[in-house]
C-alpha cells in the first residue's frame, strides 16, 4: 500500500512533465549516440546510468498517472491519429515500461564491474550506447499505439541486441554464432510480424492499433485477417521465445555479457510478450473463434509443453546460464498459459508472473554473473562451496531460486498461486498438473545449484580452501534490491497485481486503446 501511495505522490510531477510519454523513448534514443561520442568508458557508463534513471523516473510518472486511473494518449508531433503516430499508456504497458527502465537502471549499476572485465576497453562506450538504444527500442515497442511503429522499435531493439550479444565474444567466441542465430530467427520473426501488419493494413487501411481494432470488430471472418493474425502470433511468438520457437534464446543468454544476460532475461522477452498480448487482446478480439482456437490448440499446449520440457532440459544443463535460460523458456510457458486461458484471472496471473519473473530471473543472472566473475563459474558443478566462498551472492541466488520454485514468502509464490487459481476457475485441471510438475522440476534444477553451493566443499588447493571472494559492492546492491523485491512483492503485491488486474479487465472488457 505504501509503495502505491509513494508512487502516486510522484505523479504530481506530471504537470511538469507533460511530455513524459514521448521523453521516455526519446531521451535514451538520443542519449545512445552521445554515449558513444563520450568515448570514455566510465563517462559513458555514468551518462547511461543518468539516462536510465531519467527513463525510470519518467516511467514512474507515467505509472503514477495510470495508477491515478487515467490513460495517456500522446500524439507525436501533434499529428492526430490515424495519420500520426500516437503513444498510448495504460495500466498494461505502464507496468512493462517501468519494468524495462527499472531493470535497465539496475542492470547498468550492476554492469559496470562486469563490463570492465568482460568487454574490451575501447568497445565499452559503444556498448553503453547500444544498450541505451536497445532500451529506447524496448520502451518504444511498449508505448507506441501504431502497429508499424511497433515493428520499427522491435527492430531497433533487436538489432541493438544482436550487437550486444555479439560483444560477449570477448569472453567466448560462441557468442558470435549465438548472435548470428538470434539474428536469423529474430529477422524471420520480424518479417512474419511485418507481413502480418501489412495484411492488417490491407484489410483495414490503417496502422493505428485502436482503429484496426475498431474496424476488425465487425468482419472478423476475413481470411486476410486470419492470415494476418497467424503471422503476427508466430512472429511475436518467435520474439517471445515461445516453445518451440525458442531455440535462439539459450545460447543468446548464455554467451552474452553478464549485464546483457540480466537485462535480456528480464526485459526482452517480456516486451515481446506484452506486444503479443496487445495484439491478441486489444487489436484482435479475444472472443473471435480463430483466436480461441489458437489459444486452445496452439498456445496452451505449447505453453505447458514448454513448462515441462524446458524444465527437464534445464535440469540437464551443466552450464548455469543455459540452465537459467531454459528455465526462462519454461517460465514463459506459465505466462503464455495464463494468457491462453482468455480470462481476466488468467491474463492477470500471466502478467503478474511476467513481472515477478523479471525480478527473479534478473537476480539469478546477476548472481550467476558475480559467480562467474569471482570464481570463474560456468558449470553448476563449479559452484560448489559458494555458500562459504561467496556467501552474499550464494544467499541472493538461493532466495531468487526459491522464488523461481514458487516457495511462499517470495513473489514467485504469489503469481503461481494466482495462475493455479485462474486455471482452476477455468476448469483446466491438466494445466494445474503441469504447473505442479514444472514447479517440482524447478526444485530439481534450483536444488542442484543450492546443493552445490551449500552442501559441497569449496574447491581447495591441497589443504587450503580457496579464500572468500569479495564481490563488487556496486554489483551486490542491485542484486539485493531485486532479492528484496522478490520478498517485498510477496507481502505487498498490490501494485503489480492491481495493474495486472486492471490491465486484464481493460483488455478483456473490450476497452479499446
Amino acid at each position, binding site marked *: 500500500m505504501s509503495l502505491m501511495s509513494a508512487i502516486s505522490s510522484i505523479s504530481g510531477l506530471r504537470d511538469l512533465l507533460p511530455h513524459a510519454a514521448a521523453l521516455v523513448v526519446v531521451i535514451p534514443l538520443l542519449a545512445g549516440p552521445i554515449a558513444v561520442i563520450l568515448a570514455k568508458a566510465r563517462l559513458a557508463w555514468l551518462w547511461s546510468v543518468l539516462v536510465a534513471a531519467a527513463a525510470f523516473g519518467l516511467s514512474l510518472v507515467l505509472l503514477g498517472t495510470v495508477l491515478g486511473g487515467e490513460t495517456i494518449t500522446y500524439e507525436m508531433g501533434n499529428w492526430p491519429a490515424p495519420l500520426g503516430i500516437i503513444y498510448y499508456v495504460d495500466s498494461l504497458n505502464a507496468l512493462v515500461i517501468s519494468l524495462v527502465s527499472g531493470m535497465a537502471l539496475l542492470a547498468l549499476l550492476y554492469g559496470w564491474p562486469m563490463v570492465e572485465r568482460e568487454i574490451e576497453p575501447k568497445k565499452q562506450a559503444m556498448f553503453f550506447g547500444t544498450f541505451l538504444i536497445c532500451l529506447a527500442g524496448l520502451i518504444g515497442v511498449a508505448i507506441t499505439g501504431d502497429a508499424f511503429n511497433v515493428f520499427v522499435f522491435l527492430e531497433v531493439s533487436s538489432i541493438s541486441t544482436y550487437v550486444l550479444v555479439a560483444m560477449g565474444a570477448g569472453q567466448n567466441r560462441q557468442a558470435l554464432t549465438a548472435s548470428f542465430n538470434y539474428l536469423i530467427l529474430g529477422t524471420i520473426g520480424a518479417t512474419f510480424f511485418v507481413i502480418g501488419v501489412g495484411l492488417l493494413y490491407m484489410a483495414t487501411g490503417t496502422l493505428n492499433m485502436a482503429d484496426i481494432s475498431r474496424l476488425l470488430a465487425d468482419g472478423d471472418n476475413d481470411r486476410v485477417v486470419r492470415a494476418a493474425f497467424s503471422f503476427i502470433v508466430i512472429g511475436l511468438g518467435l520474439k517471445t521465445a515461445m516453445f518451440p520457437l525458442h531455440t535462439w534464446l539459450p545460447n543468446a543468454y548464455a554467451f552474452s555479457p553478464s549485464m546483457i544476460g540480466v537485462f535480456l532475461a528480464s526485459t526482452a522477452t517480456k516486451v515481446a510478450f506484452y506486444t503479443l498480448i496487445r495484439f491478441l487482446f486489444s487489436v484482435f478480439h479475444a472472443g473471435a473463434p480463430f483466436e480461441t482456437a489458437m489459444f486452445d490448440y496452439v498456445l496452451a499446449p505449447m505453453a505447458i509443453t514448454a513448462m515441462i520440457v524446458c524444465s527437464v532440459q534445464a535440469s540437464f544443463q551443466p552450464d548455469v546460464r543455459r540452465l537459467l535460460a531454459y528455465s526462462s523458456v519454461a517460465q514463459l510457458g506459465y505466462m503464455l498459459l495464463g494468457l491462453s486461458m482468455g480470462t481476466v484471472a488468467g491474463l492477470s496471473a500471466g502478467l503478474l508472473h511476467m513481472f515477478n519473473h523479471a525480478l527473479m530471473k534478473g537476480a539469478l543472472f546477476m548472481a550467476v554473473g558475480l559467480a562467474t566473475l569471482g570464481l570463474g563459474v560456468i558449470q553448476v558443478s563449479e559452484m560448489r562451496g559458494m555458500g562459504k566462498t561467496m556467501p552474499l551472492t550464494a544467499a541472493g541466488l538461493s532466495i531468487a531460486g526459491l522464488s523461481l*520454485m514458487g516457495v511462499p514468502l517470495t513473489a514467485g509464490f*504469489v503469481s503461481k498461486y494466482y495462475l*493455479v487459481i485462474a486455471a482452476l476457475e477455468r476448469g483446466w485441471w491438466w494445466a494445474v498438473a503441469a504447473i*505442479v510438475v514444472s514447479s517440482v522440476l524447478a*526444485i530439481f534444477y534450483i*536444488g542442484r545449484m543450492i546443493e552445490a553451493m551449500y*552442501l*559441497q566443499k569449496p574447491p581447495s588447493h591441497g589443504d587450503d580452501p580457496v579464500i572468500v571472494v569479495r564481490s563488487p559492492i556496486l554489483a551486490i546492491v542491485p542484486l539485493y534490491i531485486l532479492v528484496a523485491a522478490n520478498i517485498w512483492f510477496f507481502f*505487498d503485491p*498490490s501494485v503489480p497485481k492491481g495493474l495486472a488486474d486492471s490491465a486484464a479487465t481493460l483488455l478483456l472488457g473490450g476497452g479499446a486503446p
Partner: protein
Amino acid sequence: MNWTPELGLILLLVLPGLGFAGIVLAGKYPNIRDGLNLAMGAALVANVVGLVNAVGAGARPGVQLADIAPGLSLQFTLEPLGAMFAAIASGLFFLNTIYGIGYMRGNKAKNQTRFFASFALAIAAAMGVAASGNMLTLFVFYEILTLSTFPLVTHNGDEKARRGGRIYLIILMGTSIGLLLPAVIATQVYAGTTDFMVGGLLSGHVGPIVGSILLVLYVFGIAKAALIPVHMWLPNAMVAPTPVSAFLHAVAVVKAGVFTMVKIVIYVFGIDMVRASPAAHWLAILAAITIVVGSVIAMTKDNLKARLAWSTIGQLSYVTLGAMIATPLALMGATLQIVMHAFGKITLFMCAGAIYSANHVTDVSKMNGMGKAMPWVFGAFFIGSLSIIGLPPFAGAWPKLILLMGMTDPSDRWLMVALILSSLLNIVYLLPVSVNAFLKKPDPVEAENAHNNAKPPLLTVLPPVLTAGATLGLFFMAGPIMDYLRPVFEGGS
C-alpha cells in the same frame, strides 16, 4: 506493556527470532550463547503457558500479519489444538535445548552456533504452524520448518549427511509444493478462503469426488506425517545429530505434519465430510499398513536411531489413521497421540544420544550389559518404551484406547488389528534394547572395551529421565488434557 494473548501470539515468533539473533551475535562466546538460548526457551515456555491458559479460558486470540490480497493473508489464530501443539513443542524444545547443549558439548561438535541458530528458526516455524489461522499461513510456516531444519539434518557435513539432507529436502519440498500447495489453492478457489473454520471450510462447497481428490492431495502433500510412500525422508534424516532427531521426531517436524493432518480434517474438511469421503477409507487402510510395516521394518534395524525412526513412522500413522477415521473419538485419540508420543519418543531419542555420547555406540547389538554403567539412561528408555507400546500406567496408553474407542464402527473395526499388532511388534523391537542392556552379558570382546563403562554427560541424562517421569505423570493428566481439547471436537457430528 501488559501481556495480552494477542501479544503472546506475536511473541511466539518474536521470541525465537530474538533468540536467533542473540545466538548468532553471541556465537563467539559459547556460554553466553547457550545462556541466551535457554533464556529464550524459558521465555517461550512462559509465553505459551500464558496462551494455553488464555485459550483454555475461551479466548481465541487472532493477529493478522500481512494481507497479501483478498483471501490471501498471513493470519494467526490460536485455538486449543494449536495451543496444545505449541505447548508440547515449546516445552520439549526447552528440554531438548538443555539436552542439545549437553550433547553438542559432550561430543565437541563443530558449528554449534549455526546449529542452535537453526534450532531457533525451526521452533519459530513450529510456533507459526501451531498458531496459523489459515491454511496458507500454515503452509508458509510448514515450508520454513523444512528449510530451517535442513542445515540441522546435514549438520555433520559428510557425504552421508548430504545424501540424507538431499532426500529430506526433495521429498518434503516436492510433496508440499507439488501436492499440498495445489490443494491449498484449490481450497481457496472452492471455498473462497483458507481460514480455518469449525465444521470444515470446504463443507458444502465441494462434492464427494473433488473432496476425495483434495483429501488425497492433502494427505500425501503433508509428507511430514510420513505416511508410506512419502515416508522415506525420515529414516534418511537419521544422519543428523541426536538432538536433531529428537527435534524432528518428537518436538516439531513430524509432529507438525500430523498436527496439520488433524487440523485439515477438523477445520478444512470437517469431520462429516471426511467420514463420508470414500478416499478417507482407503487412506485409513494405508495408515494402518504404514503402522504395521513401520514396526516390521523397525524390527530389522540394528542401528538404534534407525529403529526409532521406523518406529516413529509407525507410531505417527496412528494420528493419520485416527484423522482418516474421523469420528470425534478417533480424532481425540489422534490428537492425544501427538502429545503422548512426543514424550515417549523424545525420551527414547535422548537416551540413544546419551548412550552415543558416553561411548559412541549406535548398534543395539552392542549395548548388551551397558545397563550397569547407565542405569538411569536405560531405565528411562525402558519407561519410554512402555509408553510407546501403550501400556498403562504410562501416557501412551490413552491415545490407543481412545483411538480404539473411535473405531468401533463396523467398517473400521477390523483396522484395530493394526493397532493390536503394532503394540506387540513394539515390544519386540523396543523392549529388548533396555532389557538386553540390563540382562544380557556383553560380548567378551566388547567387555574388554573400556568405553563400555563410560558415563554420559549429566546434561544428556537428566532430560530423558524427566520426560520418562512425565510419561507416568501424563497418564494421570489425560483427563484435563482431554477436557481442554474437547471444544475442538464438539463441532463435529
